[in-house]
């Protein structure tokens, strides 16, 4: 174990009394209170009249959702990596085999069930980061509400609805197979 010696300032008697520092502190907080009361300062945004929507930062992480690509193919192949990485275990996936008559049968695998429990999701973005198929993205939707716990579980349909179509992704499955 390495010890690091920290030099603490030596306090004089006046400082040790604590009361002057306390009064100083009270003055500062009072100053803030007065300036807020006079309307000079205000950090609060008055939702829902004022919203972030217009100036949402580029990197904002909202609800995770599944996307389809230009060909209308569902990109998720149910590799379950997002389910594995998700820290609060919000994702549940049941994979299935794509039937041979399907146009994309060569992809072989897709999710039969894909659910994200938005009560659990912490918007960490790890699912997007880990996805090897560019299938899941965090969108800018942040007002995720529901009246029951079931409402808050986004199923596959809902996830594709939020996600929509995303273009310009790598299309490795389009190669001749």
């Amino acid at each position, binding site marked *: 174990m390495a010890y690091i010696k920290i030099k603490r300032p030596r306090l004089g008697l006046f400082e040790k009394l604590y*009361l002057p520092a*306390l009064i100083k*502190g*009270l003055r*500062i*907080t*009072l100053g*803030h*209170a007065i*300036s*807020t*009361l006079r309307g000079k*300062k*205000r*950090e*609060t945004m*008055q939702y829902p009249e004022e919203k972030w929507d217009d100036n949402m930062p580029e990197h904002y992480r909202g609800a995770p959702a599944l996307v389809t690509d230009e060909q209308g193919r569902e990109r998720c192949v149910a590799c379950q990596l997002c389910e594995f990485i998700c820290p609060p275990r919000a994702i549940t996936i049941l994979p299935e085999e794509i039937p041979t008559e399907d146009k994309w049968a060569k992809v072989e695998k897709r999710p039969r069930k894909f659910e994200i429990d938005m009560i659990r999701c912490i918007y960490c973005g790890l699912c997007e980061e880990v996805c090897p198929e560019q299938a899941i993205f965090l969108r800018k939707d942040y007002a995720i509400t529901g009246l029951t716990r079931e409402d808050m579980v986004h199923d596959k349909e809902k996830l594709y609805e939020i996600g929509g179509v995303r273009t310009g992704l790598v299309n490795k499955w389009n190669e001749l197979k």
Partner: protein
Amino acid sequence: MDLFTFLSSSVMVLVVFTIVLTLVPISVYLERRVSAVIQDRLGPNRVGLPLTLFGAKKDFHLFGLFQPAADGIKLFLKEDHTPAHVNKFYFILAPALVMVPALLSAAVIPFGSTMDMPFFEGRQVQLAVANVDIGPLLIFAIASLTVYGIVIAGWASNSRYPFLGGVRSSAQMISYEICLGLSIIPVLLYFGDLNLGRIADQQSRDGWLLLPIAFGGDGPVVDWRTLLLLPTLLIAFIIFTVSLFAETNRAPFDLPECETELVSGYHTEYSSMKFALFFMGEYAAMVVGSALIVTLFFGGWALPFGLDNLIRDPATGAFPWWASLMHMGVFLTKVIGFIVFFIWVRWTVPRFRYDQLMKLGWVVFFELALANILLAAILIAIFG
């Protein structure tokens, strides 16, 4: 006891109960608004009269004054979850043990002057539930029961964080009870009385304890004897106030429930109204504490500078009913002022470390309070 006394006492109980229970949501509201403005925010400003629900065009926001009501309703409707691993009996008992002492100790606080009853000729009523001769002692005795509520809550929850919270709290409250008791002995020596009603009354004649200037009384405008004692009284006031912060588990001494270490301390496992009782109990304790400080050091219901001497009935020492009601208002204003001070301090001072807290109590305040008693006693013995 005749019917009149019975009735007036009953009314008084009701009034005190209402006052304390109204002050609780008001302090909660103040806490949130004051903390907000200190942090450059707005705080709850929406909940008012939801008139649009009844077809009106516009809601009245009323500065969010109804927020505490909404909170209350919410807490009522929350799922009341009792974890399976707790000791049920004590788990349920604990919140009551926190709330009840706070309300009980309000009984001896005089919240207004002695009133000439308007329709009952010649009868006077002291505006306090129990005008007993051991006021402060009773408060201390009852208030120290609160610690049982907290310890039992911590123990019965059968979980680590609450348990730690409970242990911390018992050590803290026992330590500071001593300072609390010792610190006001100079004050009691000065008044030579333990009846809070008479203490307030005396301050209405001679000026507040910490503002000893009185016009229109029998004595001098400024009593040099009081002036001489003023430093000791000031020290008593400081120790008393700080100890009260510790006793009510308020920041900067809120270690029993400090979120960063203990989730939320002794009430971690509580929900719904059981949690609300802890919450209210804490604020009620703050209300009663403020009332006690006001009564002891700031004249209770009395106007400053002995102005009451002008309206007092010289013969009985009682006041006409309108003056008594005004005194009630004065008292409430002072108490609310003190509550705001409590809140202000909370949002200014960071939390103490536990060892610092114990050191402050046992090494600084305990000795200081003892020395202060000695000093006051000598001064009173020589000049009194």
